[in-house]
Structure formats: C-alpha cells, structure tokens
C-alpha cells in the first residue's frame, strides 16, 4: 500500500496537472473576490454575513477543484490507457483506487487551504481599502479556512471515487461540476421543502463544515461526519467496481 501511495505521488508530481489546477483555482478566487468586494455597494458589504459570503467563495472553489483533481487522477489513467501498465505491475486494484483517494485528500487539503486563505486575505484587504469595516470575526474566518480546507480534502476522495465509477473523463467532470454548482444549490434553496434532505447532500455538508450554513443547515461537526461518510462510500464503491469490472 505504501508503494502504491509513493507511485501515485510520483504520478502527480511528474505532471503539470496539479500546478495547472492550482493556478486556475487561484485565478478564479481572485476574479470572484475582486468582482464582489469591488463591485457591490459598501452598504451591502458591511454585514458580517455578507462578508462571509464574499470570502466564502474560497470554500466553493476549493471543493470544486479538489473534486476535479481527484477525478482526473483516476480518469486520466483510463483516458491515456496507463491503467493497463498500472494494473499489470500492481493487480490488486482496490489499492490503486485507495492510494489515489489518499493522494487526492492531501491535494484537496492544499487546494482548500490555498483557496480559502487567498479569498480571506484578498477579501478583507479589499474591504479595508474601500473603507468598509471588517465585521466578520476571527472565529468565523478560522472556521471557514479549517472547515473549508477539510471539506476540500474529503471532496478530493469523492472525486477519485466518482472517477473510478464513471471512468470516462468528460462525463465525470460535467457531473461533478453540475452537482456542485447547480443541483445542490437547487436542493438547499431557502424555504424549499427539499432543504430538509438537501442539507445532507455532500455539497451542503461541505458548506456547513465551513460554518456558512444558515440555521436550517447542518452543524459543522455533523457536516464533517456526513462528508466523511460520503468520501468513504464513494472511495469504497469506486474500488469495488474497479475490482469487478473488466479493464478496457
């Protein structure tokens, strides 16, 4: 298992995919934070809740890019056919998926820290520069960075698991992005009757972990528990199906 983790780490560090995803994510964070912090009227930016929404973009982008990272680590093997030599030298397939999920957790943590950290620093600096008092508390910021990064780490494993289930790269990406950016948003809309189970969704759980859930959402600790279960479930399902199915 340690050999597989080492090999997976080498796979990631010998490609530019990781740095490219990190760069893309940071650019998106800058874009989103600048547009909000510079574009919205100062009156709207004063309440702590709204400030948290502006810097909270770090959590959402960290989670999304971590999921994509995890998914690419699996689907790229099928796309380029490297899954064949990989399984020829290491035929215990579940270990490969488990190692990929483990590496995706680490990468997701890095992506989450970078996204939430940058969003916080940039967001508060821009507000201060505009003369808007920073009303968001240190405690909220800490929860956002710690909870958001942990959520991104777990989403890395979910991405790897989904990638192992779907195998085809493009549908995996579209599915993950559609779920995180659109479907979960519909499920947790305020005053929607779907919210009662929508709050247990993996995207909503991540938002709860970052302390950005409204009262109707899960408590951060419950969100963490729910997301750990999702990560374990998708990794296990991905490993199980990889063991069972023929390799193309």
């Amino acid at each position, binding site marked *: 298992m340690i*050999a597989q983790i080492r*090999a997976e780490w080498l796979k990631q560090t010998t*490609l530019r995919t990781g740095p490219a995803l990190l760069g893309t994510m940071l650019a998106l964070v800058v874009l989103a934070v600048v547009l909000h912090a510079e574009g919205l009227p100062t009156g709207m930016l004063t309440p702590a809740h709204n400030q948290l929404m502006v810097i909270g973009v770090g959590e959402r982008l960290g989670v999304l890019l971590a999921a994509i990272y995890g998914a690419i680590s699996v689907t790229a093997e099928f796309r*380029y*056919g*490297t899954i064949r*030599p*990989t399984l*020829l030298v290491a035929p215990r397939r579940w270990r490969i998926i488990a190692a990929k999920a483990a590496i995706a957790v680490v990468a997701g943590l890095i992506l989450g820290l970078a996204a939430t950290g940058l969003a916080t620093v940039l967001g508060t600096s821009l507000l201060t520069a505009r003369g808007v008092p920073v009303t968001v508390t240190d405690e909220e910021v800490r929860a956002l960075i710690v909870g958001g990064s942990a959520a991104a780490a777990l989403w890395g494993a979910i991405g790897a698991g989904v990638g192992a289930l779907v195998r085809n790269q493009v549908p995996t990406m579209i599915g993950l992005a559609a779920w995180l950016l659109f479907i979960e948003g519909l499920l947790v809309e305020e005053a929607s009757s779907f919210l009662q189970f929508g709050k247990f969704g993996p995207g909503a759980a991540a938002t709860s972990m970052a302390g950005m859930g409204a009262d109707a959402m899960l408590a951060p600790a419950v969100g963490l528990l729910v997301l750990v279960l999702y990560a374990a479930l998708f990794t296990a399902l991905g490993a199980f199906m990889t063991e069972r199915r023929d*390799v193309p």
Partner: protein
Amino acid sequence: MAATDVDAVTIRSLTKRYGPILAVDDVSFGLRPGTVTGFLGPNGAGKSSTLRVLLGLAAATAGDALVFGQPYRDLRAPATVVGAVLESDDFHPGRSGRDHLRILAASADCGIERGRVEEVLDLVGLTPAAQQRVGAYSQGMRQRLGLAAAMLGSPRLLVLDEPANGLDPAGIHWLRTFLRDFADHGGTVLLSSHVLSEVAQTVDRAVIIDHGRLAATIRLDELDGGPSALEAAYLSLTSGSVL
C-alpha cells in the same frame, strides 16, 4: 514445484463473452518455457481478449488462463514474472519516458532499483530521449518504451499484443533480434499479430485462432517449407477472412 515443470502459459477451455459477442470460444493451449510462440489470427479473432484475460485485466466467462500455474491477479510480484505490452500507446503524453518507468518501478513494489530504469532505457535505446515527454515520441519509440516497461522486473515471460504495429523495417528487425535474444536466455515469449510476415521468422510455434476458436497449433520445425508454408496454412485455416 519448480518453474520448469509448469507451463509458462496455460489456456484451458477459455471462453470470454462480451454481452452477446462471443470473443473467445473454448480455447486451449499451453506454452513451454523458453519458446517463442506467435499468436496469430485475423483482426477480431479473439487474440487481444485472450491476452487480457491471461493478464488479469478481464475476467474469463469460463475456463482458466494461468501464468506459471497461477491466475495473474494472484501473482505476488507480477513484474518479476511477466512483462506485457497490450497497447502501443499506454502513456501519459505529458510525462517523460524515464518518469513513466520510475512510476511503474515504484508501483511494482518488488525492489526494482533506480539503476534498473536506466538499464532498460539503455536496453531499448531510449537513453537519449529519456527526459523528453512521451507526447513527442514516434510510434517506434513508444513501442520501445512499452518494451522497456515490460522488462523492468526482469520477467521470465513476455506477452506482447501486436508489438510490430507501426514499426518500420529497421524497428521490426530490432524487435526480432530482441525477442530471439530474450528466448535464448531462457525466456518465454507470446506475441500476437495479424500480419504473418512480421512474426514468421521469429517464432518457434504458431497458435492460430479464428472467430474465437482455436484453428491450429503449428510447430515451425515440423513444417516443410518454413515461413511460406506457415502462410499457406494460416490462409487456409482462417477462412479467407484476411481477404
């Protein structure tokens, strides 16, 4: 049991079905260690399906496919037993040839040392290009990199699916010499091809399949007329589907 008592490859009543398609139909043959066997048949005859089952990438519908008496997925350190190349382009284009080999060496987890990567690069003549991304490799270089990967664990058996595809005449000559040398040192080779002329001069024996069924097993030293007689036998056995 000593390895010499066991066939390097045992295919026993192997059947592989993909949905309604019967790709391999009750095929049986064995490979003695130290021989070079051509696995011949037209495109779609079931060669690749047989090799995939043998190498543990696909599950048999019925029957057995064993490597030195064991199912592939039960081998403890498969890289030290079998080296295989199934597709000629199973590389990430953004990674260098050397990194591709380093990764497989780490993943194989059987004590392949750093120096072995350089050895196999040298063996296939890729040392000057080792640092380049595979995306910039020619077809022939990719074939060689695949072979280098197969040789990493110093295996006793080489399984190659259409290894001559895309090689120029010099490349085919190089491959022939390489395989002969491997067999002369006691290794066993199973190589598939649908182009008879590529393998006729290399193999000791030919296993011919057609429409998923075993058509014939031919020993070349028992065949009067050598390669040209093999061609005649192949054409008559494979029901003209090569036309």
